[in-house]
């Protein structure tokens, strides 16, 4: 099984490092031919506007098709913005692979970026963690989340499960094959469980 990491721009190296640390074979994906070679794709943090410019139309088409066909996707921060149904602050186009609405830079500018040491898992989150086995998860109650100019999920569709929350808002959600975090599990200590959930779905 090969885990792809979209490497157009952003913290793709941090994702690759985390995935490799958990034993996954990682391929960087920039072009259509590379997308066809992977069994799942991580969309890293970065600038969603820049990534949108760098995504070729045929790549977007193929990604939407594979995402709808069930390819596992892990999206963090900017990646979540790319996958959303609707994006605000300001409005921009998105792939509509995940039935959520997202507000960009919802917590403010860089000086408002923060670390929440205890993002709370919901019941659905705890049961998702149960599938990982005992050793893989340091805590079943909470994980650390690094939020950098983070977006906020302002609506979740009926098929979207909320796995974890910060200040009452969903920050880790799942819908079938798609797992999405508005924070950066790839930069958070002890948050391996998020990438492990993705690896297990490959």
């Amino acid at each position, binding site marked *: 099984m090969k885990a792809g990491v979209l*490497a*157009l*721009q*952003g*913290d*793709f*190296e*941090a994702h690759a490092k985390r995935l490799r640390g958990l034993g996954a074979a990682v391929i960087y994906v*920039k072009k259509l031919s590379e997308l066809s070679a992977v069994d799942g794709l991580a969309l890293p*943090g*970065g*600038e969603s*506007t*820049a990534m*949108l*410019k*760098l995504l070729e139309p045929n790549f977007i088409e193929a990604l939407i098709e594979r995402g709808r066909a069930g390819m596992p996707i892990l999206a963090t*921060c*900017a990646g979540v913005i790319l996958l959303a149904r609707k994006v605000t*602050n*300001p409005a921009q186009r998105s792939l509509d692979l995940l039935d959520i609405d997202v507000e*960009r*830079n919802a917590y*403010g*500018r*860089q*000086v408002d*970026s*923060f*670390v929440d040491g205890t993002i709370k898992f919901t019941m659905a989150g705890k049961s998702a963690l149960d599938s990982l086995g005992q050793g893989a998860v340091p805590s079943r109650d909470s994980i650390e989340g*690094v939020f*950098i*100019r983070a977006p906020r999920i302002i609506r979740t569709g009926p098929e979207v499960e909320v796995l974890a929350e910060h200040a009452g808002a969903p920050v880790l959600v799942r819908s079938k094959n798609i797992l999405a975090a508005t924070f*950066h599990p790839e*930069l958070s200590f002890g948050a391996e469980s998020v990438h492990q959930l993705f690896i297990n779905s490959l």
Partner: protein
Amino acid sequence: MTNNEIRLKTGLAEMLKGGVIMDVVNPEQARIAEDAGAVAVMALERVPADIRRDGGVARMASVEIIEGIMKVVSIPVMAKCRIGHFVEAQILESLGVDFIDESEVLTPADERYHVNKFDFKVPFVCGARDLGEALRRISEGAAMMRTKGEAGTGNIVEAVRHMRAMTSEIKRLSALGEEELVNAAKELGASLELVRLVAKDGRLPVPNFAAGGVATPADAALMMQLGAESVFVGSGIFKSEDPASRAKAVVKAVTHYNDPEILREVSRGLLNAMPGIEMQTIPAEQRLAQRGW
């Protein structure tokens, strides 16, 4: 400063990797940069080529220019303060800029000390010509390094020199024994702790970007192939004949820096780049890279 604050600062630098940061002097240029796919813009009063031409004291951009640019783009906005001018930095932080460049492009305010960057919540980027200089800036709290290059020249030779110097010094450290590292720290003028870390990891502890003299997509890709993790483009975009298409081309060149076919295609059909300046024609006292230590 807490460990979390350092992680948030270098974390934003991580998000900018593989991207292009463009100098802009007004909201219109900022929009063009964002539309082209820039990951951030640097708000300035004058681009380095104009600072070089006009002479005089170059300072932090006006509050109005920075606010005007922050208003129109959703990507991070950076701004420059003079070396050692911690009050300009305080003003920039209170404006809410996302990154401060303590920059040799502006006229230094302090010939002895740089800003203590640990005093700030906003992350800083600083320029360096070699590893020792980079580690001294990191000791002061810089969350990102960049080559100094020679800004405003459209000549990549100095940025290449600085990147190569950094890379070869890092390689050299990796081969040294513990007792040799103590001596290397002394020679580099850097803390032993940081020197040990670089020797162990084979890289700087913060992201390392390129800046100074980038004028073409090929220049940008060259810096990436030499080990830069992102590229700053100063005068190169808006002093060229075709800012919008050149900006797009440079963005694509940085993402696909290892793919000659894509680099060939993005280089096709561009109008003239900014005029360049031969290094020999710049007197030593006018070289911006000499500022700072």
